[in-house]
């Protein structure tokens, strides 16, 4: 399992035309490390989830070179925290 991360991408206004937008989504979807591409409205234009096998920055560099990228932020997903809740099997045993 690699490192998961979210990229919040802002597109250059020059390329905000519908056809460029679709091409951008397709370009991102063609990158093997990209898990999902979500067109969003808000502080950014695209929210991309990636699963980087080695380092997130290597995937980020691939995307940074695209001409339609204005700027982007990386949010590294932290590994899951250990939970204190009993496992289902244990809970069943306690309840029994």
């Amino acid at each position, binding site marked *: 399992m690699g490192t*998961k*991360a*979210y990229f*919040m991408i802002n597109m250059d206004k020059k390329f905000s035309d*519908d*056809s460029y*937008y*679709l091409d951008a*989504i397709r370009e991102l979807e063609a990158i093997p490390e990209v898990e999902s591409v*979500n*067109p*969003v*409205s*808000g*502080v*950014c234009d695209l*929210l991309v989830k990636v699963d980087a096998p080695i380092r997130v920055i290597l995937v980020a560099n691939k995307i940074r070179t695209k001409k339609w990228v204005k700027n982007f*932020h*990386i*949010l*590294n*997903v*932290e590994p899951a*925290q250990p*939970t*204190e809740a009993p496992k289902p099997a244990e809970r069943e045993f306690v309840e029994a």
Partner: protein
Amino acid sequence: METKAYFMIKMEAITGGDGHTDAVRELEAMPEVEAVEPVSGEYDLVVVAAVDAPIRIALVAKKIQAKNWVKNLHVLKLEPAAPNPFLDEVCSIPGGESINWCVQCGMCSASCPNVNKMDYSPRKTIALVRAGRRYDVLTSNSMWVCASCYLCTARCPKDVKITELMHTLERLSVRHGLHNGGATPALYRAFIDSIKGNGRVHELGMMMKFFLKTNPLAALKIIPVGLKLLSHGRMSIKPTKIKGTEQIKTMVERAQALGGAK
């Protein structure tokens, strides 16, 4: 209809204890929340939420904002679907709306007598339109090779008007200046002009107009055929008008206003 959104949360500094874990659990307990992911960077948490029609994303955002550990929150609303302006354009032209009924069974391609001369088979053309590949479709020769035999339309199990669709694509390719039909658009224009003027085709006038617009020298090749037709009385030198030419002209102009090539 379901609306989906991502909430990007910056948390207040939590010192010690299980504050962070408790915050994640609080969010996970909300019925609208699908997933919570702790992240590092500009934000601390990414929350995926989905709500159905009467509930609005803004209300969920308010609920989260009310938590005392939320410093600031940004909402990223998911756009409904990847827009496909090309499909919308095709559907908006009479004859193009049936493209949405296609189930990609391939009966049209199997029935087409000219499929081997096409860049893309009729089934593939429909798939490309649906994928929004405007340039690929409009620069192909597929619609221009269509013989309008209507075999595909007759055999289509979903009643997709494929021949009409091909004509729609012809019109769009001319409108966008991307056509790959050689001299065919010029022939169509000469034909329509002849119909508008006389109510019927005047073969000699139409062909003269066509060759003047495309390649006048090519007319030399068909002069013998023309002379034979004239001598047998199959073609007249003077155009003859039909009754109700004005009505025909009005019909053609109405069709052009609806989206036909001008």
